[in-house]
């Protein structure tokens, strides 16, 4: 009885914490159904410089789907950016799968001189923020005349070190005995990789794919830096274009932007948890 009470007492701050964390989502969700005048009244002190403090009500005074309908039926710009985001994200995922999986396998299963140094370099590069890599990347992309193309965003992300690092952890977890048995049975390196490594490391691959998708879906600095043509912009740059007069549209766009990530998260939640746990493990 006492144990149960203590447990409930322990849940209370956690619930509060969860509520605080979820508030932005509720904030965005309720904004979708608000009318323009309500949004202006709530946000004018922040966005239009009006007097007073910005306010918010979780439940709209006069709920409406107007913003959502306007976004879906009267904003072709949103869809251009939506498909741009999808295109960039899928290309990045494909690239990472093509180049990251073999890299992680090689680092995990082969022993060669300098392997540890390369691994250390990967970790260091993974920890570097984009602001550090921005200028070198810009110069390289400019040199290759890739600026203001989707390739300028896709290619650096394809060769990102973070998925390699996650998959490295999963590939390291495959027992050496299974690989030995395959070799004894006459399997070569490629066969071992394709028929033993990938199936057994699929959780890591999916996990890194989900994390990679979420990261590329939310890319904002890279497109802003490398893309000048508006028609190439991803959805993450749609919101900065929205003003107070289109606040409803902004909330609707944010809501729609959340949907693919949410679906992906729900689909691969288990893999994602494994991937996050793998990233936290030390070698």
């Amino acid at each position: 009885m006492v144990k149960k009470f203590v447990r409930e007492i322990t849940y209370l701050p956690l619930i509060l914490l969860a509520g605080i964390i979820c508030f932005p989502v509720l904030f965005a969700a309720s904004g979708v159904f608000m009318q323009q005048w309500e949004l202006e009244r709530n946000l004018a002190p922040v966005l239009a410089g009006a007097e007073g403090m910005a306010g918010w009500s979780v439940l709209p005074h006069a709920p409406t789907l107007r913003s959502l309908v306007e976004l879906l039926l009267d904003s072709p710009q949103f869809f251009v950016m939506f498909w741009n985001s999808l295109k960039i994200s899928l290309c990045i995922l494909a690239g990472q799968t093509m180049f990251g999986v073999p890299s992680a396998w090689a680092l995990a299963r082969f022993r060669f001189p300098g392997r540890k140094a390369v691994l250390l370099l990967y970790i260091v590069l993974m920890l570097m923020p984009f602001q550090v890599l921005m200028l070198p990347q810009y110069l390289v992309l400019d040199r290759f005349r890739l600026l203001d193309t989707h390739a300028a965003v896709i290619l650096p992300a394809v060769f990102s070190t973070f998925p390699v690092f996650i998959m490295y952890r999963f590939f390291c977890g495959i027992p050496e005995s299974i690989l030995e048995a395959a070799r004894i049975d006459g399997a070569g390196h490629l066969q071992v990789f394709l028929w033993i490594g990938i199936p057994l490391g699929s959780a890591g691959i999916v996990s890194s794919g989900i994390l990679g998708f979420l990261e590329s879906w939310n890319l904002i600095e890279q497109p802003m830096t490398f893309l000048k043509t508006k028609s190439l912009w991803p959805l993450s740059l749609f919101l900065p274009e929205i003003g107070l007069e289109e606040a409803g549209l902004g909330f609707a766009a944010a809501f729609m932007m959340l949907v693919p990530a949410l679906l992906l998260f729900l689909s691969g939640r288990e893999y994602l948890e494994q991937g996050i746990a793998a990233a936290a493990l030390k070698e």
Partner: protein
Amino acid sequence: MAEEGTGEMKNGKLVRVTAMFFALMLCFTILSRAADQMSVAVVQTERPQNRMIEHAVRTSGKIVQNQELAVTTLPDQRVTAIYVREGQRVAKGDLLFEVDTGLLDEKILDQQLEMEKQELQVKDAKSQKEVSAQQRANSQAQASEQYSLSTGRAGVQLARAKQQLDEAKEKLKKFRESVDEGKAGLSGGTGTADSDVEAALLQALEDKTNAYVAAQGELRTLEWEIENAVFTAKQNAAAGTLSGTIAGELSGSVSGNMSGAASGASLAAEDRVYTGAADAEDMDEVSVETGAENEAVSIEPLADDDEEIVLDMSSADAEPPVDAESGENMPGTDDASITVDMEAPEIVPDRTGADSRALDDPDADIGDMIIEDGGDPILPQPPTQEQLSQIEQTVRKSYSQRLAEAEQKVSSAQAEKETAEAALVQYQQEQLAAESSEKAASAQQLTADVRAAQQAYEDAAIAVNEAAVTSGRAVAIANIDEPSNSSDRMNEITYEQMELTLEKLEGLKKAKGKVCAEADGLITKINIMTGEKTTDTTALLMADLSKGYQFTADITKDQQKYIGTGDLVRLTSGDGKQKLEDLPVESITADENNGELYHVTVQIPEDTFEPGMNVNLDFVRKSETYPVTVPLSALHLDERQQPYVLILEEYGSIMGAEQRARKVSVTVLEQNESYAAIAEGAIGSEQELIVQSDKAVDNGSRVRVAH
């Protein structure tokens, strides 16, 4: 196994949801694009062109005759038949209409009787005029005769009075001489001295009298000047600037003339003043000042041997004589000089100027003259009586000092004259006292005689003057022209007019009441009706075909700017079958009633269009070549009525390369109903201009070019 199956099923659901989500997004993508394109205006564009601006002038008008002939006939004639109709061509000599000859005969007879009556009236009027002329001549002769008799009689009396005065003076002189001789015999020399003293006193009295009369003359002159100045000032105030100027000039002229007359009068007063106490020798000239300011009527008894009195009535200049002081009418002319000869009295009026006039009052008469000559001195707001009184007081005040001086001068001259007179009387009394009683009695008697004779002479002189004035006035009245009477001439004119009418009536009768065309023509209007009587107006109107035709039409004020006299135009008949090229415009004149319309005329060659035809005129005025011309549909006006064009502009957006309209203000150099020439610099020749749109397009509107 069960958990795995549930997980796979859940994953499969999520995959389907995800797929559905993306499928929905694809649908909405298509729908939103379709909706977006519906709001985009589809436009058509053109590039500016290098071309001329053509101004076409098109109008339609009619062919009319160059000259119209009016066919008239005498009024009050009954029309028995009309042989033409409107629009009919007639040749010279063709019968147009016919009038009733019976009624015509009656009219002729009536006209003849009326003419006979008129002839009698002419004769009566002539006779009446002759009688009037004879009566007037008689009146003039009588007035002249009366003048001669009156002035002659008065002259004779004056001569007699002068003779008696001379005789009395002579007697007194002889008496003095005898007394002086006696005294000289007793005391030696004093008699002559006494005589000299008396002569000196007499001379002094004469001088003082002259001075007194001159002072009186000056005073009267000044008084007249004051009255004239007051009158002029009032006239100027009443007549305003313009009229005042005219009146001022006229009154100034009169004033000048009057001043001249006054000067002459003053001169006469100085030189010819009548001195009652003067000796007979000093009275060669006796002047009676009648007007002082204007007129000096001097009576000049000439020397005894030629006994002639000359009445010099000449004024200083050509102005009519004015008796300003006496208020009596003065006979006079512009250059009046009436000479009365005592022996053969006759009047010699010198009538070289305008008609003589008798003026009663100087001010009033001058006023009349000014009003007559100066036109209509009417002002919208004439000065009030108070203002006029104030003006009069101001003028009189300005003359007050001079008037006081003149009056003072008269007073002093009169006092001096009386002093001299008293001195003479005292001297004579002393002389009488010094003499013996017998001689004193004689001397007193002689002195009294001289005085009586002198008084008689003075009266006679006044009588001469009055006779001259009175009878002269009668002569002037008799000489006034009678009012013009033109009744005789008017009767003659009426008779001549009746003669002309009769001639026409007889001419019509001779033509048996038939009226024919005088030239080839086209009947355009018929104002008479069969059975009705003719009126004073035109019976028929016909176009004179021998003078050619012309095209006339109306054009608007805007069209008039592009067509001028001499421009070669094309005329096309209404049915389009007949065309005439390169015909010069003869005239373009503004419509008198409507300022927005102009009449254009073009002379038509013979045997082309018929009168009355509807014809179209075409003319194209080409401008210089402009490097930037745009279709008029590309030109718009903003709220400030400033012209602008919308050019096509490409820009990058989220949707990719899009096009929108951009407003560019331009300056229109010239335009017609299709194109406008734009000043260079605002738009280039490569820019696409929006000339047509399926929706309203403004600055910044997204557009799509229709191909």
